[in-house]
């Protein structure tokens, strides 16, 4: 271990300056990201939209640069003691390949994971991240870094020098772009079920790391470059095989046992007489008045265009109103799901039998805060900061409210697709409150300007519509957040179809 640390120390000294610069870059860009706000005032949504687009490009550029720099620095770290060739200094010294590998891994962990986390953690703390959010953010950041490091280590371990490393990288990158283009456009790929197609992509992404680890571990331990290249070839062939013929559907499913016997799902498919939509309306008895259910799109319920065929469509607002104290009812909340399958031609007489899987999430609402309904008003709750950017008015009546929400979203903007992230985390409901009149009017979410993210900070701009309420000086804007606390899944089978009677 002493010698491992001794070699690692040498690499730390060698890479200290470039990595310090890289960490400064991360800190500066993150601080810059937090300091730049969308335009406010009686702004048109178009201005916010432009801001969001520009910020999106900027953050993607920053994340891309961060990945490229990590890749190059990690490659340089490995090339300090190049593995192929016969002129390496370490090769003639009593340094075993396993020892060198351990030293390189230790140095890269300290330089490319720990050092930037040391820089980012104070920024996260200063922005109200909780311990669990910091841990999750650090985990996602480390995971993203490890993917880049694994690929960089693999390519660098097969290169004699920086030129070879860059050349091999360019070659591999070019090949990946070509393959990706081919696999996206090939006609036979389009015939594959979307869930299977997604699963293939997922397996490839997850398989990338062990394949890269196998290549560089083999190269470090044996220095047999030809065999290591064979391993690269095998990994690529396996990738092709999975992409072309992988039969798996690895869509994650929730636990199949309901957490409580108090829940009873009774599915029933109904169709309104006047529309083409089919409503799938199960009834649900919940354990507490706050429990809500979401719907996870099951396997086989995807449309050809890749969109979910079934979408959640029921009132979270009821639960939120109860939380705000405007609804004293204790009745379990009923919910329903919309099915937008193009089955307009189906009638109750010829409706098919439908099999699927129902996933239910339990979410607990929490009032994040309330703020005066005026421009620039801000409230901070933990790591979430909500600010009113402006209004769209007709005379003195507010039609729309523009808000900026900056919150902690571990894993966002780390340059890695959050493979293991739950498809439901949390979301907010907004209310216009007038306590004098005992009114809590829900605001409709009209538009969301795509999230701009960097290092677990997520900024979204929302356009909320106000309807059916008069807003005065006493009015406030309240935010209720729903956070997932549990889930279960169970298979369901729906037979036939029945007309839904108008209410």
């Amino acid at each position, binding site marked *: 271990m002493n010698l491992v640390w001794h070699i690692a120390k040498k690499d730390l000294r060698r890479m200290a300056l470039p990595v310090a610069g890289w960490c400064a870059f991360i800190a500066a860009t993150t601080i810059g990201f937090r300091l730049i706000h969308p335009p406010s005032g009686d702004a048109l949504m178009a201005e916010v939209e432009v801001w969001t687009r520009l910020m999106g490009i900027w953050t993607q550029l920053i994340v891309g640069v961060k990945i490229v720099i990590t890749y190059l620095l990690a490659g340089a770290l490995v090339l300090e003691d190049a593995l192929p060739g016969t*002129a390496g200094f370490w090769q003639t010294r009593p340094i075993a390949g396993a020892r060198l590998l351990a030293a390189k891994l230790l140095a890269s962990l300290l330089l490319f994971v720990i050092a930037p986390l040391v820089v980012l953690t104070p920024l996260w703390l200063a922005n109200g991240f909780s311990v669990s959010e910091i841990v999750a953010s650090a985990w996602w950041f480390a995971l993203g870094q490890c993917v880049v490091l694994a690929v960089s280590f693999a390519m660098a371990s097969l290169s004699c020098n920086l030129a070879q490393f860059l050349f091999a990288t360019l070659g591999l990158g070019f090949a990946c772009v070509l393959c990706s283009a081919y696999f996206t456009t090939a006609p036979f790929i389009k015939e594959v079920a979307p869930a299977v197609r997604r699963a293939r992509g997922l397996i490839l992404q997850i398989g990338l790391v062990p394949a890269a680890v196998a290549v560089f571990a083999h190269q470090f331990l044996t220095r047999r470059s030809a065999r290591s290249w064979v391993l690269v070839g095998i990994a690529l062939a396996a990738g092709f095989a999975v992409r072309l013929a992988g039969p798996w559907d690895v869509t994650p499913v929730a636990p199949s046992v309901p957490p409580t016997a108090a829940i009873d799902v009774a599915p029933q498919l109904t169709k309104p007489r006047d529309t083409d939509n089919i409503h799938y309306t199960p009834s649900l008895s919940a354990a507490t008045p706050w429990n809500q259910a979401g719907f996870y799109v099951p396997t086989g319920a995807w449309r050809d265009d890749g969109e979910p065929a079934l979408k959640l469509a029921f009132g979270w607002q009821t639960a939120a109103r109860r939380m705000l104290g405007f609804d004293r009812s204790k009745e379990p909340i009923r919910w329903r799901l919309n099915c937008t399958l193009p089955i307009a031609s189906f009638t109750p007489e010829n409706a098919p039998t439908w099999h699927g899987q129902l996933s239910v999430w339990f979410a607990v609402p929490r009032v994040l805060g309330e703020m005066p309904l005026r421009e620039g008003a801000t409230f901070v709750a933990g790591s979430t900061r909500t600010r009113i950017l402006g209004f769209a008015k007709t005379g003195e009546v507010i039609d729309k409210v523009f808000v900026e929400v900056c919150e902690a979203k571990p894993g966002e903007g780390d340059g890695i697709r959050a493979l293991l992230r739950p498809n439901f985390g949390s979301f907010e409901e907004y209310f216009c409150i007038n306590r004098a009149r005992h009114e809590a009017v829900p605001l409709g979410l009209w538009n969301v300007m795509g999230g701009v993210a960097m290092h677990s900070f997520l900024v979204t701009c929302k356009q909320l519509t106000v309807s059916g309420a008069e807003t005065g000086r006493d009015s406030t804007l309240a935010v209720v957040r729903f956070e997932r606390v549990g889930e279960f899944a169970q298979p369901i089978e729906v037979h036939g179809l029945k007309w839904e009677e108008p209410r």
Partner: protein
Amino acid sequence: MKFQRTLMNIIETNNLTRRFGRAEAVHALNLAVPQGSVCALLGPNGAGKTTTIKLLMNLLRPTAGEARVLGVDARKLGERELAQIGYVSENQQLPVWMTVRQFLDYCRPFYPTWDRELERTLLTQFALPESRKLAHLSRGMLMKAALLSSLAYRPKLLLLDEPFSGLDPLVRDEFIKGMLEVTAAGEWTVLVSSHDIDEVERLADRVAMLESGRLRLSEATETLQARFRRVEVTGAASTFSPGDEWLDWEQAGALTKFVETRYAGQATERAWRERFGSDRVTAHAMTLREIFLTLARAERALAKERAS
């Protein structure tokens, strides 16, 4: 039995062969370097000297045959063996961003036998500036730093691959002097490859000559120089053919010149006089360079003859 053999020969190769594609860099090499000797591996450019040393250091894998270094198969050289081997090569990539002090501090922990006293002595002897980066050292200084880092742990075996190449005469002289002092102080075995025969002559007590990847000779310098003589005969009779053991045969008028490869003192001289029918026969001792050139010319002529 094996232990005894290991004590006898620090390096042993058995039909060691290395091919690069169709080209054969080393062909069925059978070389033995006894413990405590300073062996010079000589040969022209492309003879296979560097390849041989790389095979010994497990930097290259043999196509056929095997090499044993310190009694271990070269392909299985581990940390323990490498801690007893010093290696200096003209092509080695040193961590040139380090200062001389940092470089030595980096190397030291890998060697349990590192001698701080010897390190200090060599630093003074080689006049190396400790605070200067290796990148800022001259080529000669760099080689000295590499040599220092390979000597300070008193290796049992020192492998030097063209250590004099690119050094100016003064530095070369200092380098060799340093080498001589160090090797004289210990029971070290040295294998030094070079095409700079004059310099090697001062160092080596044993010579191995490679030509086109083949070992032409391997013996003690003393015996080699003892059996080679440049012979000049004046007034020789013209009716005889040269012997098989004679090289570089030349006859111009009454003067005949050749190189005797099996010189054995007065007995040989007596045999010449009888054969040539002349008393005017003079035999001159040869330097290693002359011997090497003679053998190289003979090899080339033989190759040409084979080709035609």
